């Protein structure tokens, strides 16, 4: 029992101290841009009512989901193709290196040229393109780094190319794909917000801008906190999916490390 208490003590300790420090530190602050934590918490329920969540948070997350989904599919398909064929890889290496280096936010004005600022299409394309590179490059690395004995075994049992792809190449590369996907998710969230700051009308980023323009400072703080929570929730969700899909990999690594 004490072990459980100790664990929760560690987990809750620092956050509790920080929160109380914030609470008292800002208790009677006069600076309107640093409202007391109490007012921020008070305005939370009134600001983030259910219909605002439906109107602002869901569209943002939907766009992130669609964009991220597209990036995952395209990234894996292209990555596997490039990873498997040395010529294709040599051909595409420098081009990929350049596109990977372009900071994703730069995509927003470029894609706005084609798809305009408002509306979903431009935002989804921005998110998809921004998330594509980490997944694509990690898949290529994963396919290239696949254990040669495994591919030999697959060949020696005459597994058809399709079955080799599904049972050997993809599972073998999945740890690297997940590394790429985690980076892509963090970039996706950044792009989700930025793509809404321009031509803002509906969405989480847009809501925060709206609060800021109308000097509703406490509401704006709640918006920032909601955005933070979404970042944390997405990371936790990702961890859950990863632990389920990569259970074999995590188990194996644990045993290798002799933990």
């Amino acid at each position, binding site marked *: 029992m004490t072990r459980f208490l100790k664990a929760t003590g*560690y*987990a*809750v*300790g*620092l*956050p509790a101290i*920080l929160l109380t420090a914030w609470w008292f530190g800002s208790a009677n602050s006069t600076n309107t*841009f640093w409202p007391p934590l109490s007012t921020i918490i008070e305005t939370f329920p009134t600001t983030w009512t259910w219909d605002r969540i439906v109107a602002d948070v869901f569209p943002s997350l939907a766009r992130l989901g669609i964009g991220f989904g597209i990036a995952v599919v395209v990234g894996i398909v292209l990555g596997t193709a490039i990873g498997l064929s040395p*010529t294709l890889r*040599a*051909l*595409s*290496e*420098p*081009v990929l*290196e*350049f*596109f*990977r*280096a*372009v*900071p*994703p*936010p*730069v995509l*927003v*004005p*470029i894609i*706005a*040229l*084609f798809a305009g600022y408002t509306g979903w299409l431009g935002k989804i394309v921005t998110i998809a393109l921004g998330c594509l590179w*980490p997944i694509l*490059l*990690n898949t290529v*690395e994963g396919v290239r780094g696949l254990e040669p004995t495994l591919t030999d075994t697959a060949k020696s049992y005459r597994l058809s190319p399709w079955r080799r792809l599904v049972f050997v190449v993809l599972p073998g590369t999945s740890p690297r794909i997940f*590394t790429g996907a985690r*980076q892509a998710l*963090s*970039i996706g*969230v*950044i792009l989700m*917000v*930025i793509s809404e*700051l*321009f031509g803002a009308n509906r969405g989480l*980023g847009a809501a*925060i*801008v709206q*609060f*800021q323009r109308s000097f509703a*400072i406490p509401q*704006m703080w709640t*918006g*920032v906190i909601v*955005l*933070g929570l979404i*970042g*944390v929730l*997405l*990371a936790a969700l990702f961890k859950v999916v990863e632990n389920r899909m990569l259970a074999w990999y995590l188990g194996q690594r644990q045993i290798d490390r002799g933990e």
Partner: protein
Amino acid sequence: MSSSPSTLAPPARPRVGARPRRPRRSRDLWLGIAGVLIVLAGAETLSRTGIVNPDFLPPVTAMYAALFEMLGEGWFWEALWLTVRGWAIGLAAAMALGIALGFVIGSVPFLRKFTSSTIEFLRPIPSVALIPLVILLFGTQPQSAFVLVLYAAFWQVLVQVLYGVADVDPVARDTARSYQFGPIRVARSVIYPTALPYIMTAFRLGAAVALILEITAELVIGVDGLGRELGIAQSSNAVPETYALVIVIGLIGVAVNLLARFVERKALWWHPSVRSENS
């Protein structure tokens, strides 16, 4: 080949013409260049033939013309310097803070456990969440970009350094202790060399993220730099200049990657496997 009757002495070794094969490395180089040319030619034809509306995708030649023209203008170099400086300051601060805190927290088990939940909570918070705050605090001053860059890069560095300090081989640490190494010597000769590869990875990851946030701040908030110039070019419908700036920013990104890899190779020449895992 018909199976010759098995005589005692096998047939004389067939002379294989030893044609000097072009080593694989330079073949890849040519293919790489070909790849780049294909993409450029593709963009050019797409735009010239009007398949893609030239107002939105100018011919590549126009982009480079705009780029070269820009190279001659003062504001370009000033913006470039501001972007690079913003990136460098933010990254340096993040590295210094991340390494210092990483070492302190990493080497004290109590601190390690005590702060882990907070780190796990604050780490995934997207740095863009701070944009509204920094706008209120610093408006379009460089400090806005500094805060965003510092916040984003700091977590990358801290987490890697914590991995590094935690990864110290207990056997090495015990041997050092058995030779009565003082804490400073243990840090210098055991913890630091083990942590160094992680610090280098931290530098590589931090450098990339720092550039993303610097450009974001310039583009979104209007902090001076290439990002802001890009926003202005785009909104004043100077399309070739917009693409030219994208190319420049992309090249900066490539340079940042190359610098990071160079520093990593230089500092880690002695490490058995220079960590090839690319971010």
